[in-house]
């Protein structure tokens, strides 16, 4: 398959993730949609790595996976902290930091 097909799939998945981040309100689901966007970027990186026959893109994808794991860790810690304080699990209700 041509590399362009992989880029197409990646673009579609990225936009589904972006739309999910904008539409959904539960922070858990927003984190899941962020994972979608990161994974779309991973697919791009690996497709370009295949295109050049060079392993650097795959290293980049591994680093992206590490960053995604850290983001999940902190994000889920925040969700658990919100739940402990009996705050609503809804990003639209958390508006105390609005400018």
């Amino acid at each position, binding site marked *: *398959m*041509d*590399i*362009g*097909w*992989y*880029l*197409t*799939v990646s*673009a*579609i*998945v*990225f*936009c*589904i993730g972006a*739309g*999910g981040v*904008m*539409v959904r*309100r*539960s922070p*858990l*689901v927003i*984190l*899941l*949609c962020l*994972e*979608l966007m990161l*994974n779309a970027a991973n*697919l791009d990186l*690996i497709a370009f*790595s*295949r295109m*050049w*026959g060079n*392993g*650097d893109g*795959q*290293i980049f*994808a*591994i*680093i992206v*996976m*590490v960053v*995604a*794991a*850290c*983001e*999940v*860790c*902190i994000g*889920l*810690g*925040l*969700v*658990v*902290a919100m739940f*402990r*304080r009996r705050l609503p699990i*809804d990003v639209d209700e958390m508006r105390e930091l609005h400018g």
Partner: protein
Amino acid sequence: MAAVFFFIAGIGAIAGAIGVATVRNPFYAVLALVSHLLSLAALFLLLRAEFIAAAQVVVYAGAVMVLYVFVVAYVGSQDEPVRPVGGPGLRLASIVFAVLIAVELLIAVLGSGLKGIDGRGAPYEAGFGSPAAIGELLLTRFLFPFEAASFLLLMAAVGAVVLARRRGGLEGGEDEVLRAIPTRLPKGAGSIAEGVGDINPTGDIGRPAIGATTGGDGKEEGGW
């Protein structure tokens, strides 16, 4: 044959992504993300990235998703309320915005006419994407990013513990029980004199006993 596998995995990935973004129950969204990640691992295999595909299945679809499932089970997989906060116009606008990004990206990818993305990529060399090749790159050329990634993981773990730990003395249900216990103890409490009844000998006649409360208001009347 590769085309068949590509379309199966690609459609699976897109369907899983749509499931994540649209399913109301967070638990089913996590399951949709697992199927999406498995399809993506198949795409990685088609791109000759065997190690990344294995890491994707084991670390991502395995470990990270188990973390998600634990948190969803802890928080309770409550469905989102139907009431839209920003109004239906905002929701529609965001969907339109996402579709516009998709159209723009597809025009950029498919209409670019770049020769590189029209081919199947560089000729395959034996060992490309294998664990040995990835490990050699990680430990020679990309040693600093590798160490920085390990430090980042350590910081994230410590941060998550700090964020989600149980704080003492905050508002909350479980700490109320501890507050009912009197913190100021009378002199001699816990000594032998208390054991033989020397501290408050008239406990049951006149004043109430040490630390006793009258009613449920928590006001302490006994003592010394």
